[in-house]
């Protein structure tokens, strides 16, 4: 029992630490938030301008704005989780504390649990701001939207994204110099194939194969049905179960991969760079 309490305490250490870091870098956080909001708004404006650009025939710009806004918001939510979780090693390598954290008597599961819980909380706040600004800016009506179904999809999507992120987080363990940058490759690939701003059916066939493997595809397709068409939650099941399956597979796989990577780093001396 006390073991579990100790482990949960250790897990909370990561949440508290990250909150403290965010507080100390508040100016940077503000810049980041403004950047994100501007970015999201500019994408949604494509929907407003699409009619003019294409000659103005029969485009439902209200629908298109919402279509794009859902893309930016879902993507923001998932990618922010991805960045915080993959940074679990990178952040500490940058500060030089990684050896201290990895020699503490905690399981990697509790370690990741803390980092992940923080990532989800942070992402919810971040995405919430983007959502509110977007709704106010474009006067979006969500009268017949199924918000509950949308939420269920986001939660299910977080699970599988967490798994992918844990896998990504081993890169900085394997490649001390460039590992953090390599994680950008994963997120860029997911952005391309997941149909964030367009239906995946416009992609060349060979790329569409990958879109089936990306959890974001299911979250986005489901979210659009829930928010644009008001599809009832039960009818979203075909999008939810693949997410749950991917989560159930990728989280243990991620933890196992992390375990191997940690052993590799301890065998080859990749945890420290000097001293």
């Amino acid at each position, binding site marked *: 029992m006390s073991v579990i*309490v*100790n*482990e949960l*305490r*250790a897990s*909370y*250490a990561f949440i*508290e*630490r990250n909150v*403290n*870091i965010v507080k*100390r*870098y508040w100016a940077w956080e503000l810049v980041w938030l403004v950047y994100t909001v501007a970015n999201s708004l500019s994408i949604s404006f494509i929907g407003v301008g699409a009619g003019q650009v294409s000659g103005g025939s029969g485009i439902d710009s209200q629908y298109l704005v919402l279509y794009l806004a859902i893309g930016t918001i879902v993507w923001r939510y998932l990618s922010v989780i991805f960045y915080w979780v993959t940074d679990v090693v990178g952040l500490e390598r940058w*500060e*030089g*504390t990684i*050896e*201290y*954290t*990895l*020699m*503490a*008597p*905690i*399981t990697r599961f509790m370690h990741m649990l803390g980092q992940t819980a923080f990532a989800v909380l942070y992402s919810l706040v971040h995405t919430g701001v983007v959502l509110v600004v977007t709704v106010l800016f474009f006067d979006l009506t969500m009268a017949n939207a199924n918000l509950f179904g949308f939420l269920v999809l986001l939660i299910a999507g977080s699970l599988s994204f967490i798994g992918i992120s844990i896998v990504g987080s081993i890169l900085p363990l394997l490649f001390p110099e460039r590992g953090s940058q390599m994680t950008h490759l994963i997120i860029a690939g997911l952005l391309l194939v997941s149909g964030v701003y367009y239906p995946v059916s416009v992609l060349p066939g060979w790329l569409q194969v990958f879109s089936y493997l990306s959890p974001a595809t299911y979250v986005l397709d489901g979210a659009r049905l829930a928010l644009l068409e008001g599809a009832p939650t039960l009818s979203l099941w075909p999008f939810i179960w693949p997410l749950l399956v991917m989560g159930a597979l990728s989280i243990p796989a991620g933890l196992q991969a992390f375990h191997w990577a940690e*052993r590799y780093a*301890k*065998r*080859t*001396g990749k*945890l*420290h760079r*000097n*001293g």
Partner: protein
Amino acid sequence: MNNPAIAVQVENVVKRFGEQAGGWLGPKRPAAKIAVDRVSLQIRRGEIFGVLGPNGSGKSTLIRLIATLLLPDDGQIGVFGHDVVREARQVQTLINRVSVEASFFKKLSPMENLLYGARLYGVPADLARRRVVEILQRLGLEERAIYSPMEEMSRGMQQKVAIARAFLSQPILLLLDEPTTGLDPRSKREVQAFVRELRDNHDATILLTTHDMSEAEALCDRIAIIDGGRIVALDTPAALKQRLPRNGHAPTLEDVFLELTGKPLTADDEA
């Protein structure tokens, strides 16, 4: 290996670094660098054990091997009877470490950094907060500094915070890798007194590396001198000095160090 009087048991430990390319097909090429070369030693419970050696002789590597941060290529290490590879978690609950470079979240304050460290070891937050103030003041840090970002502190002050972090989890084995490097003479003394106090009043065993010979002599019960990853001598400071033939003057520990690490040594020099 389960003798309660033995804190650390190192047996024939080898650690190499470098490319292990060619391992797929054919015989493995020998690794580029051997950092720890068949080291064996025992540290007794309650002992302050010093490791001296030139730069790059393998002191920090040895400490990392004991701290579960590196996996040995060969040999075995036990900490209070627990194997550092197979029972890493148990070992981790018993130890803590101070490294040469004080590694912290630089934007966070000592309090925030230490609270994080304490939680990792399951220390309750209110207890940790109290102890942080206690230890840091004991080490001569101003109260104000405890709540300001680490980046505003001098190296010596940061080093004291690092020592506090290691002590916060109340380890029974403390691994101190050059804990006083970069400290002014007074701070050095404060830290040395603290180390002694830990051993005398808190039942801690201490493994310490240093480049300060007088510190080693003043603090350590026994000293191992290593060179090129191998132990070239292991004894009490007094006995080490006895080894050097006197020609007129009494040898210092530094004389012994220079003598033993200055030229290629023969195997029979080993203790």
